């Protein structure tokens, strides 16, 4: 689908940037999950105090929020690929893609709110 005579607005023609970002965010998430798993093992036994204590320090809040940003971007690229593969009508696909971005942005705000209440 074009907007105007020559402006192609669909497809994964954004170069290798998204490909690379999907890999980079995957590495960020893997490192974060390993660190979190170690942190949980060290905090045992897990009850409310020790669980909330993991996320209370500013550094851990920040690391977790960065992991959520990486997750949102990673999920966006993955869901975009799925929509591109299976939803052929362009108009429906663009609505789904835009909805995915809005939804992930909202989830990100929610995650920040959850973290900064601890």
């Amino acid at each position, binding site marked *: 689908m074009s907007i105007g005579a020559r402006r192609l607005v669909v497809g994964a023609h954004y170069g290798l940037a998204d490909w690379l970002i999907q890999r980079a965010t*995957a590495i960020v998430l893997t490192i974060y*999950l390993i660190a979190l798993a170690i942190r949980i093992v060290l905090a045992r036994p897990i*009850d409310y105090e020790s669980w*909330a204590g993991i996320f209370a320090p500013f550094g851990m809040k920040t690391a977790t929020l960065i992991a959520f940003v990486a997750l949102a971007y990673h999920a966006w690229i*993955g869901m975009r690929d799925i929509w591109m593969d299976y939803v052929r009508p362009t108009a429906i696909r663009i609505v789904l893609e835009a909805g995915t971005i809005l939804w992930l942005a909202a*989830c990100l705000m*929610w995650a920040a709110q959850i973290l900064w209440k601890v």
Partner: protein
Amino acid sequence: MSARQVIRNISIADLVRYRLPVPGVLSILHRISGALMFLLLPLTLWLFDLSLRSEIGYQQLRQAAEGWFVKVVLATLVWSLLHHLAAGVRYLLLDLDLGVDRAPARRSAWIVFAVSLPLAVWAALIIFGVL
């Protein structure tokens, strides 16, 4: 002059009898597990919110986790994460041109399942209170 061979994508009906190689199974499950985690994101955030909100919320979560629905959701999430993570590490290695040939690619696909499935079963047994 012979007619040009027409190559078509397989139809949905063919999916049942199509023998997908192990890396193919790994690949479609990578996609399915990713989509599942995306779909379950609101539930995950809700559980995360409940767990951190307060002592009472934490206890409510413990109670909610007694129900079979939350148990199934948690087990699904854990399997999805384990498969997506293990298969994802394999893809990162493939991106570095490691194990691209057919035999090592099949072997590494089996290794991914050998890592993710027992861990997922172990986690599910804990979630369902067997262990």
